[in-house]
């Protein structure tokens, strides 16, 4: 049955309420726990297997070996990659924040932070190098 003005009580009820819209960026915006932000590398944890490079949807990750530390002891024979250090280059402009890199990493070397304000004026600033 059609009733004129059926919507009016709701509108009047809302008049007395404060606005729902938050005045971001003047008010801090909080993301929930488990938010998928920027991938980060735990220092020294990477073993250079490149599983993340292989599975990255956006092809946004590069893993490069760092020059060997001259003071480090020689690696034991038969143990691959021990003592070697790697850095991750992340192209944040390409990253789609799917967290596949963190899932596929056998050493849990990659984790995602909760940073969401990652916009930048230049593309170069979005090329992150992590060791």
């Amino acid at each position, binding site marked *: 049955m*059609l009733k004129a003005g059926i919507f009016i009580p709701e509108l009047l009820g809302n008049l007395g309420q404060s606005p729902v819209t938050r005045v971001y960026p003047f008010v801090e915006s909080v993301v929930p726990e488990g938010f998928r932000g920027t991938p980060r590398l735990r220092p020294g944890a990477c073993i250079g297997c490149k599983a993340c490079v292989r599975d990255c*949807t956006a092809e946004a990750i590069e893993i490069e070996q760092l020059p060997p530390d001259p003071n480090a002891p020689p690696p034991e024979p038969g143990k691959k990659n021990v003592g070697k250090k790697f850095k991750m280059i992340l192209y944040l402009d390409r990253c789609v924040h*799917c967290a596949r890199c963190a899932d596929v990493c056998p050493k849990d070397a990659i984790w995602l932070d909760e940073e969401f304000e990652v916009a930048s004026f230049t593309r170069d600033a979005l090329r992150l190098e992590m060791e």
Partner: protein
Amino acid sequence: MEKSVFRIPIGPQHPFLKEPVKFDFDIRGEEIVGARMNLGYNHRGIEKACEQRNYYQCMYLLERVCGICSHSHTSAFVQAVEEIMNLEVPKRGLYLRMVNGELERLHSHLLWLGVAAHEVGFESLFMLVWRDRELIMDILEKISGNRVNYAINTIGGVRRDLTDAQRKEILGILKTVRQRLDYYAKIGTNEPSFVGRIKGVGTLSAERAAEMCAVGPFARASNVATDVRKDDPYACYAEMDFQLITHDSCDVLGRVIVRVLEMIESCKIIEQLLETLPEGEIALAKVSRRVPEGVAVSRYEAPRGEDVHFVRGNGTDKPERVRVRAPTMANLEVATESVIGSYVADIPIAIASIDPCYSCTDRMAIVLRDPKRGTEVTTWEQLRRRGIEWYSKNKGIRF
């Protein structure tokens, strides 16, 4: 074209279109007497990109086919891959996949209801509906880690478990949402300015909807009882108690009512799922990266209608072919036709009533008919006969 008929082009860029598409309407005075549409302004090459990526990369790539039904596309793809690999997904994983799917249906329908209200100039309803949609978006962000691209699926299950606190929180929020939906159902059918604007607009008869294979709420509003969740239940939908909503008004009003009532059914499904959430694993512990040779067609009831994914595996870790048929593809042709007989001012709401998503729909196909290479073209009739044979043999469905 007779002299009194005038042709107005709408698109590819037009204020009422959210994405590029071209319509040509023949009008006599204010009345529309002919309509045509032309797609192809938004081809992104996702299907081809999938052929060069492994299955895990494809999953997140296909999630980006659509911003609203992102979960639908990954679910359809993952279901197809699981069928080829013959995997049995743990029940808890399937339940969580369904929870996400139904929450997505809720937010998609709420978004559409807001857009529909906006198209007819009912801005208050638009604002209120979108305010309530935020409740659902917040739940989705909490359980998956992102508002839009949830990335919750993985081959063999889901990636994130639901804690008991989250489960209780969702049930609490759903109570509020259900109250609001009951209110919208009342508004949708009782507010004279709203009902008067959408009643009798964009009419599509049941016969024509069935003939043109319309899908989703658009077809159900024309009294065609089609819903993959009932017709060919995937995941655990066969165990759920819910109604298939249809309406016989065959116009935009019917589409509003069907969507609002369907949201109430979605709430019921989520409540059932969360109350009977089984214990156990959420995903298979070890899944091979290589997918054996085989083909699979997966059907999924996306918020806009039936979403079909075709996957062919060739024994490597990359698919040989992925084909995506988004629901808008099935609806757009007949929706354009449904505008005939309405007025020019009805075009935005009549086209928007299918909840169109043109970017999801755009595909490119090159047909090579070369007898030397053994390629042939299958006609629609041959394809239909093959389909009937396959379904009667493998699924026991009689036609």
